[in-house]
């Protein structure tokens, strides 16, 4: 009886210690406010990749603590809402839907290219930070790749309370909101998606857009290159 009680106590102590070395953060759906921008007169299809419905990032920090960030379906809902605000008509396609079965001016395929975060231990500050890199690929109505754009978003939140889970969650939501702001204001400039309202690309445009896709200026993930922080670009609309 005594041995069983000791065993149970040890198990409880061990699980408490183990829990102390792991943090789980679940990001709820980040609602984007209705933006003060004009919708683009386009019918677009958005293909939501399978990973957007169940995105989990796990990372061990400084060999001490494992953080698991579960974005769940936050990305899927986020892009559905965002593109709903940006374009006149939006059709949402699942990973297995055939785009040829639908009529649209442009097909957009967002992907998560990278997810990183930092905790106060690493930066020696009181802040949690999250970086999310989205790759947005745009196709014309004939299925030709029109452009690819990498969006690097950043969110930062100061540590509140003991654990920091809420702060990291907030930093992730702020990073998604940062991506939304950048996409709303810069997507047309970066991808020239509005031009696809006039029909699919012709052969010469396909050639040039293919080279633009590989152009480092678009793909190096530096938002500053096309969007100055702390200011408004005159050509945003």
């Amino acid at each position, binding site marked *: 009886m005594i041995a069983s009680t000791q065993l149970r106590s040890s198990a409880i102590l061990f699980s408490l210690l183990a829990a102390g070395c792991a943090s789980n953060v679940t990001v709820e759906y980040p609602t*984007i*406010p*209705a*933006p*003060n*921008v*004009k919708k683009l007169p386009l019918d677009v299809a958005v293909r939501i990749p399978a990973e957007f419905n169940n995105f989990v990032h796990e990372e061990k920090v400084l060999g001490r603590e494992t953080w698991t960030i579960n974005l769940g379906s936050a990305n899927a809902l986020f892009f559905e809402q965002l593109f709903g605000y940006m374009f006149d008509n939006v059709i949402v396609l699942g990973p297995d839907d055939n785009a040829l079965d639908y009529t649209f001016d442009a097909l957009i395929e967002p992907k998560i290219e990278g997810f990183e975060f930092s905790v106060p231990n690493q930066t020696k*500050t*009181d*802040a949690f930070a999250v970086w999310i890199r989205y790759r947005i690929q745009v196709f014309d109505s004939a299925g030709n790749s029109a452009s690819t754009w990498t969006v690097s978003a*950043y969110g*930062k*939140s*100061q540590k*509140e309370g003991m654990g920091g889970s809420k702060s990291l969650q907030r930093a992730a939501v*702020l990073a998604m*909101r*940062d991506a*939304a*702001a*950048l996409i*709303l*204001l810069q997507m047309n400039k970066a991808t020239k998606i509005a031009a696809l309202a006039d029909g699919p690309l012709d052969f010469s445009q396909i050639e040039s857009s293919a080279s633009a896709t590989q152009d480092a200026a678009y793909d190096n993930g530096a*938002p500053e290159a096309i*969007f100055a*922080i*702390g*200011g*408004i670009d*005159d050509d945003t*609309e």
Partner: protein
Amino acid sequence: MTLSNSITIVLAFGLAGCVTASVEDNREETTGLLQGETVVVMAKSYHQGNETEADYISCVEKSLGRGSGALKVVPGQVFVDSLFPWFEPRTAPSDTKGLVLLMEKPGVPEAIKRMGVRYVVWLDGGTERITQGGSLSCAAGPGGGGCFGFAWWTDDADYEASIWDLSDSEAAGTVTADFSGTSFLPALVVPIPLIARTQSRACSGLSKQLKAFLSSNEKV
């Protein structure tokens, strides 16, 4: 009132760390608030390296909205959401030149008018521990426990509020608050914290000056 109660009250209110304060303003244009006009308090963008604490911003927001000469304050998050995506950390204008451009964007002047926002107060700065020293050790055993030693630390709270007048898209001026406070923690069995509430004092000092600055009809 018993002697022990009196001692407790003296310890609670009388013994606190010392704080030195300096609050100044620099007026660039005449201010004043008309009936229905409101104020919003925001942190300068972290994209530009600003580290102003969220609780400090919340403290200034609350302090402006209560007490004598209380102002009508629109919560920062409500303002940012109503103007999405133009006041996000990445997109918010960094100077009044950007503000002029922003006021030309569709829906922006209407949203600002709807909320009655006349002034945006941008907060910058933070509270830092600049020095600390001493030593304090505590021990506990079956017969009880206690602490012995002496520790001290100095916090420096340095904040600047830049005020923009949205009615003419001009900078109205700045208010700065520089507070420095030293806290002491002597312990002879029981530790007696003598805490200097530097950040809290910087909040009330800056808020008081901001109220006076925004409500005043003083000419430049």
